[in-house]
């Protein structure tokens, strides 16, 4: 018979489709993946350790840089943990605005995912369409807090400032426009034969395996597990809103694609409800000038665009936390990669990395 030789190939860290600095060590038989090993750490900045030398307030901008595609959600999660330590009650208006911004952030993050995922599979137009809509969301963020990527807008006990004048109308305008834009993406992809062939049955993971690996977010819900922190442990004011948690059946790339699209629709639904019932009042609770939480520990998690973002803090009663630990959904989801790509082709690897929606900044903390 023919003798075949396996080839070891380095995909990344500087590869157009490894979403940052992921290095994937592949063993290929022809173009079929025999084995793969993700190598991480190229972006490591030691944020957790660094945080132990900062005050609670000083840590907030560091959390922006963890998952730089969803920095508002990171802010929200971290501040939530500090508020738990301090036992602070946040005013309702601030909580509503937090929800609006967190959901806008989810849409923006999913747009980056859809853009890059489609680009990985070769659909370039979708990439640019998604960035067009993301720009509008970034404009909203910019007019709220002046930043377009790392917002640093959540404060302990509330928010940096109230929404500027006209912001609510602009946000509503975006929400009205968004469904027609989503139709454009769907026209190009959802029933496109090539897209279906590239995503259905690719990177399948069962519900049981997904739970065992600790996956969360759309990666977990794609396999049919109905688990969403916003429903399971509602934070901010998620209890007040009516929204669905979409789940998949087959746990493949296509299911996860549909889920994220539906999540964008649901986020829009939440934003509109929050805008309709936005209460008046304070946007910041009374917070002591020097923040020194009592001795103790707190874990707070939020449903980020990529899954459960957890923040664990131990306080020794001083101004600085004794121990800081982040639970990154990217890091946990990434461990499923070798299993997902095994037996697939090189072309599928990029589709699978795309469906994981990894942000390496959050993997290499």
């Amino acid at each position: 018979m023919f003798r075949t030789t396996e080839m070891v190939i380095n995909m990344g860290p500087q590869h157009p489709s490894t979403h940052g600095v992921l290095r994937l060590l592949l063993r290929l038989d022809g173009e079929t993946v025999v084995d793969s090993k993700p190598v991480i750490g190229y972006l490591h900045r030691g944020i957790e350790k660094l945080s132990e030398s900062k005050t609670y307030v000083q840590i907030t901008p560091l959390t922006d840089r963890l998952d730089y595609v969803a920095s508002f959600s990171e802010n929200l999660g971290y501040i939530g943990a500090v508020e738990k330590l301090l036992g602070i009650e946040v005013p309702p208006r601030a909580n509503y605005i937090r929800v609006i911004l967190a959901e806008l952030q989810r849409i923006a993050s999913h747009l980056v995912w859809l853009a890059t995922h489609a680009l990985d599979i070769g659909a370039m137009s979708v990439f640019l369409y998604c960035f067009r809509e993301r720009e509008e969301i970034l404009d909203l963020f910019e007019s709220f807090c002046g930043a377009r990527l790392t917002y640093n807008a959540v404060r302990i006990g509330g928010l940096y400032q109230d929404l500027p004048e006209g912001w609510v109308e602009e946000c509503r305008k975006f929400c009205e426009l968004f469904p027609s834009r989503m139709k454009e993406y769907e026209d190009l992809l959802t029933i496109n034969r090539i897209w279906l062939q590239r995503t259905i049955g690719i990177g399948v993971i069962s519900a049981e395996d997904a739970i065992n690996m600790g996956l969360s977010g759309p990666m977990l819900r794609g396999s049919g597990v109905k688990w969403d922190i916003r429903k399971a442990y509602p934070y901010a004011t998620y209890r007040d809103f009516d929204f669905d948690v979409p789940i998949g059946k087959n746990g493949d790339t296509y299911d996860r694609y549909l889920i994220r699209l539906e999540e964008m629709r649901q986020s829009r639904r939440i934003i509109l409800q929050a805008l309709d019932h936005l209460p008046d009042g304070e946007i910041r609770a009374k917070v002591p000038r020097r923040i020194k939480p009592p001795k103790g520990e707190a874990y707070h998690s939020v449903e980020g665009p990529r899954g459960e973002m957890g923040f664990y803090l131990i306080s020794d009663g001083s101004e600085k936390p004794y121990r800081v630990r982040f639970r990154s959904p990217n890091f946990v989801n990434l461990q499923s990669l070798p299993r997902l790509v095994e037996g697939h082709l090189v072309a599928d690897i990029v589709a699978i990395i795309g469906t994981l929606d990894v942000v390496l900044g959050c993997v290499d903390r």
Partner: protein
Amino acid sequence: MLKNLLISVGIPAVQGVAVLLIVLLIVAYLTLLERKVIAFMQVRLGPRRVGPHGLLQPIADVIKLLIKEDITPKNADKFVFALAPILAVFPAIAAFAVIPFAGQPVEIFGIKIRPYLSDVNVGLLYLLAISSLGVFGIVLGGWASNSKYPMLGGLRSAAQMVSYEVPLGFSIIGVLMISQTASMVGIVEAQKNLGFWFFIPQIVGLFIYFVSGVAETNRTPFDLPEAENELVAGFHTEYSGMKFAFFFLAEYINMIVVGAIVTTLFLGGWLPPTSVFQRWIPFLGTVTPSLENFFPFLGPFGSMTTGIFWFATKTFFIIYLYLWLRATFPRYRYDRLMALGWKWLIPLSIVNVLATGAVIILLKSF
């Protein structure tokens, strides 16, 4: 003696150089067109900085490619590495030898000048033979780079060529059967004489030819040999400067060649659009002469330029389809592409040949 030498060597040489220069100019501006058209579809502007509306961008690109450092990897096979881009470009340009741009010859000082380089009776066969040589450049380029991604790209290209050359060949047999000639000029004249363009009876053939043509030229959604998102840049990962430009050139020339062949075989070459329906709508007969010659006062020269105009318009339409496809479709997966070629296009093209034969026999027997 001198006149004979001029007719047999001088004029073809001048024509050849003219065609080459024009093709190079078109390729340069095709890159701009592609960027502009795709930018339009993707709601952005495209190049605008160099010259008015970015019109000088292609010239800036050429200058950039010329002065860029030309790197050869240390462990590459240097000779083959340098040869491969030339091997890719040469067959692409050579294909223009048999493409008729218009029908009417022009007489200047008693010397007949035809609007094509040559009209050989095996023109179509020559095209098939020469166009399949281009893949050597890609495969050798991938291999000579001594790098893994280019190697994968080169192998993909070879497999792709094998899968698509067969349906490509079969798809044009229907045209051969109807026109009863393999001369490119003859095929267009057959369409004129029969009163219909061959895309009408050979719509399946046209579809198969176009799909295979896109696959042969490695364009989206079949751009697997370079597949930027999978293989970084595939076979030309290690190439830079002018060597890279040569691969680029070959790809774009091949696009024009496919457009020109589709035009000649299926869309009536230089014939005006009214010629499709003239047989059935007699009124069009009165319009046709003016569409066949926009400048009657120039005589045969006017007719030739009009022919070239129609030919270029149709070719441009096919090239536009290429760009449209690129802005619309995701990329095929390697094995799906092979499956499409072997399981669908080849059987379909064979059925098309059999059906065409059956219809011809039926029509002849009545």
